[in-house]
Every structure is written in structure tokens, then in C-alpha cells.
């Protein structure tokens, strides 16, 4: 296996050697950058293509006699059948477990692309990268997931170049200017994912099928604890992970999304993704006056 590319490809080197800057910013964002005294020096990007999809691990679960032991360091919660029934059809145990290998692969893909983008920025002598856009795309039918990050590298006007890793932010334009005015300095973009697999046990199965009442000895509506637990945990994990990378800084403009996939009956996968801007307060907030309300005549 080849070493993952650590150096910039030759085409990128050539591009940087040229005089003109390029910027992925819209004109208004470009104008706002100049206002802030940040000079765009180039569009920077990073990629990582990961082999994807061969790890759903359906085989691990099945209807074994005992629950899956869980991945190293992963979170697990087991559910035991209260009915005391033993039958091949009866789901005697259930489990919510963290799919750490998916989280690890995702982290590796994202971080590699991020590091490469920042390398490009450093190559250009940039102080920061603004307007970062990240996409993760499955490459058609190739079983490959591509992580692609891009942004516009900027230099602080008349400032010496620095050996430090550039700062980065999803924001650009007036929104970034307002972040500075509000007393925050951008530190870096942060993202995290959490992946939880749910293997329903009998109680969950019956409740989801709508036959839970018969077992509980009453007809009516009941909360489905196992799934609520997984849904809550998947969000908690993503938040805790992001919080752990903040080191006391704040997270601004967070975006949380959760997707759900059903592989088979009673076999669910939940994935949450949280991203945002890590920002550091450099001065106290001095509140602006209440903004002037306007009505547009159009």
C-alpha cells in the first residue's frame, strides 16, 4: 500500500507559483475581507478518499445467544428480555452500541483532508483560512467516500508571516467581520460524528410494531426507551466530543444533523454530525444598540 500523500501534488505547487491570487469568496465576502484588512492569497483545498461501506458488520450481530461485546472503548448498553421466554423468534436481548470503527474512519478522512488544506495554506504563507466548505461524497459506485475541504487562505495585511498553524473558520464576509466586532477571534473549524447501532430487543420490537400493550398487560401508548436512549446518546456523544476539543473556547454557529438508516427490521443505525466554529473571546462584549427595524418597500 502506498503511503498516503503528505505533500502537495505537483499541480498545486505550480498553481501557487503563479502571481495571481484566487478566491472562492463571493464578491461581497471578498469586499468584506478587504475591509477587515485580510488579503485573499489563494483558494486552498484538501482531499481524502476512503474505502467505505465494507464495515456495516451485519455479521457481528445476528441473533446470537449473547450480546456483542462492543468495540474497544465504545459505549454499549444492553437490554434484557423481561418475559423469560426462550424461542428462536423471541429477541431475548437488545443492544445499543457505538460503532467506533465508523467514527474513526470518518475522523481520519476528515482530518487528513483538513490537514492537507492547512498545508496548502501554510505553503502560501497564510495566517488564516476563511469560508471553509466541507463535503463528504460517495464516489458513484466505487465504494469510495471522498472528503473534500476547501476555503480561501488569507493574510493579515502588512503583518509578518508566522510559523503557527493558520486559524480557520466556516464563516466569511460580513458575518466574520461581525464575529470580530463581537469580541471573538476564530480558532478553527470543529466537527465530530457519532454512530450508534440499535439492535432491538423484544420489548422495543413489540412497541415499534404496536403490540407492546399486550405484553405490558394494558392497551395504550408507551415511550420506547431503547430508541430514545440511542437517539439521546448519539447527540450527546457528538456534543461531548466537540466540547472536548474546545479547551474552554466557545462554539459558534453550530450545526447538528442526525440521520437514521434501517438495515433490517429492528436493526437501526443512527449517525449524528456536529460542526461549528471554535472561537476565543479576546475582549468583553460591548453590546451594540438594538438594531433598527426596517420594512422593505418592494
Amino acid at each position, binding site marked *: *500500500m*502506498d*503511503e*498516503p*500523500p503528505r505533500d502537495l*501534488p505537483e*499541480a*498545486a505547487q*505550480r*498553481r501557487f507559483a*503563479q*502571481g*495571481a*491570487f*484566487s*478566491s*472562492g*469568496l*463571493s*464578491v*461581497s465576502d*471578498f*469586499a468584506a475581507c*478587504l*475591509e477587515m484588512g485580510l488579503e*485573499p492569497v489563494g*483558494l486552498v*483545498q484538501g*482531499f*481524502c*478518499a*476512503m*474505502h*467505505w461501506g*465494507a*464495515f456495516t458488520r451485519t455479521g457481528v450481530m445476528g441473533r446470537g445467544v449473547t450480546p456483542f461485546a462492543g468495540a474497544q472503548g465504545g459505549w454499549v448498553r444492553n437490554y434484557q428480555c423481561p418475559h423469560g421466554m426462550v424461542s428462536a423468534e423471541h429477541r431475548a436481548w437488545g443492544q445499543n452500541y457505538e460503532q467506533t*470503527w*465508523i467514527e*474513526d*474512519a470518518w475522523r*481520519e*478522512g476528515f482530518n*487528513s483532508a483538513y490537514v492537507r488544506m492547512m498545508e496548502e495554506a501554510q505553503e502560501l504563507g497564510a495566517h488564516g483560512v476563511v469560508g471553509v466548505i466541507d463535503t463528504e461524497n460517495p*464516489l*458513484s*459506485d*466505487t*465504494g*469510495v467516500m*471522498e472528503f*473534500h475541504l*476547501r476555503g480561501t487562505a488569507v493574510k493579515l495585511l502588512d503583518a509578518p508571516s508566522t510559523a503557527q498553524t493558520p486559524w480557520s473558520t466556516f464563516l466569511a464576509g*460580513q458575518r466574520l467581520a461581525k464575529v470580530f466586532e463581537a469580541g471573538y477571534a476564530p480558532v478553527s473549524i470543529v466537527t465530530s460524528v457519532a454512530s450508534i447501532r440499535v439492535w432491538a430487543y423484544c420489548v422495543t420490537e413489540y412497541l415499534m410494531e404496536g403490540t407492546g400493550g399486550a405484553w405490558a398487560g394494558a392497551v395504550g401508548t408507551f415511550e420506547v426507551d431503547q430508541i430514545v436512549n440511542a437517539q439521546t446518546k448519539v447527540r450527546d456523544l457528538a456534543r461531548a466530543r466537540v466540547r472536548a476539543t474546545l479547551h474552554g473556547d466557545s462554539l459558534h454557529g453550530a450545526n447538528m444533523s442526525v440521520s437514521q438508516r434501517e438495515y433490517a427490521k429492528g436493526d437501526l443505525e443512527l449517525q449524528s454530525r456536529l460542526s461549528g466554529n471554535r472561537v476565543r473571546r479576546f475582549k468583553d462584549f460591548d453590546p*451594540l444598540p438594538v*438594531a*433598527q*427595524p*426596517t*420594512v*422593505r418597500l418592494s
Partner: protein
Amino acid sequence: MSNPNTDLPQATEHRLEELEKGLFTSDLSVNEFLLIKEVGFHPLGFVMGSSIYHTGIQTRKWGQSQELTKLTEAMYNARELAMTRMEEEAAELGADGVVGVRLDVNYYEWGKDAAEFIAVGTAVKAEDGVSRLNQLGKPFTSDLSGQDFWTLRQTGYLPQGLVMGTCVYHIAHRGIGQTLGTTGQNVELPNFTQALYEARELAMTRMQDEATRLGASGIVGVRLEEKSHQWGSHTIEFLALGTAVTKTSDDITLAKPTTIISLDN
């Protein structure tokens, strides 16, 4: 293909003659029209250029990731022809530039492996009579909207030309998959990473070459587009597009924005 600079169709000549009499047509909205007037330009007419191009066939190696240079050339030349014809129309009108340029590709049922490349925009002229032609003596082109054109002028920049670079790339079908099947793990595929990286960088470098030729100091609003056209999912065109700009003034005349809360929905 004959020289595109001299062969505008008859109907076009006629339409342009009418425009020269002082009538202007434009697909600009009222807002864009007013903002363009605000920075001292007057719209002259709606201009376009088109080219129907037959894209040749290039064999792709199933297991290899590579650039398909013939297709790259076809995609590039066809757009360039459409653009040049549009510039030609604009020059005919005595324009300094074209704003709001849109580049489109159409496929028709009657033309297998053929595509129509179209460029449309609004030709504009500076009202102070000073020429704003670009370094090559041609009208500048730009895909900026009227609003963006106004904003850019406030920062002291002037568009020089819509620049683009393209790269058609074939991505290998298999090869690496086999070694992976056994490991059952998620690992990086360095070959894929390299290929995609290379393809996009090539498109961007080519775009930047165009900007350098125009003597531009930079490119704003760069977009990266990925299209499969009609070649199947493993062949992708990476297209980089942006507006090359040069600085004409050091003054930033953009007023400090007022904070407002809009009560409109």
C-alpha cells in the same frame, strides 16, 4: 471551423445594428440596471455566443485513473468559441465589457456526442468615455451580477475576464478494491485521493493561467463544478470558473454597513 471572429450570422448583424441606434436590451433586473448605472456604466444590449461541438471519443482504461485530454480539449474549446463569439457581439456594439455572463451546456436528442455551448450576458459601456477594454484589447467578461459588479467597484477592482479551466478525468473502476476486500477496514485510498486532487488542481491551474494572460491580479468568486455530462459516472469534468480582476484604485468606498432588523418575511 472558420474564424469565429468574422462570421456572426446575418440575423445577428441586423439585431446589433438596431441596438446601435440607441435602444438597449438586457436581462438585468431593475435593481441590477440601477446599480450598474450607479458605477458609471450603461447597458448596450443582450449579447450571446453559441457553438455546437462534437466531442470526440477517447478510450478509457477500466482500471486506470487518468485525464482524458481529448475530452478536456473539446470542453474547453467549445466554451472558448461561445465566449469569443459573445465578445465579438459585444465589440460590435462598442462595449467595454459584458456582465452577468452565464455559460450553459445543452444536449439535444438529434446530436449524439454533440453539445451546444452557450454564453449569454449584457454588454455594458463606461459613460465617461474612457476605455475599459482589457489588456488584450477585448471587452471584459464577468459572471458577476449587477449587485456584485457594484460591490466590486467599491473595492477599487475592475473585472478583466471570465476565466475558466477544465479537466475531464476518468476514475478507475477497480483495482484497489481487491486488496481491500480482505481487510474489511476503512482505510484511505491514496491513489484516489491523488487522482481527484490532481484533476481539480489541473482545472484550477488552467483557470489561473488564463488570468495571468489577462494580467489580472486575482480571481474572485471561484466556483468548482463537477459534471458527468453523458459519459457515465466514472468520467467527470472538473470545471473551475471565476472572474479575473485588477485593481484600478486603492480606495475602498464601501460604506460601513448599518445594522438593521428586517421585518419582512
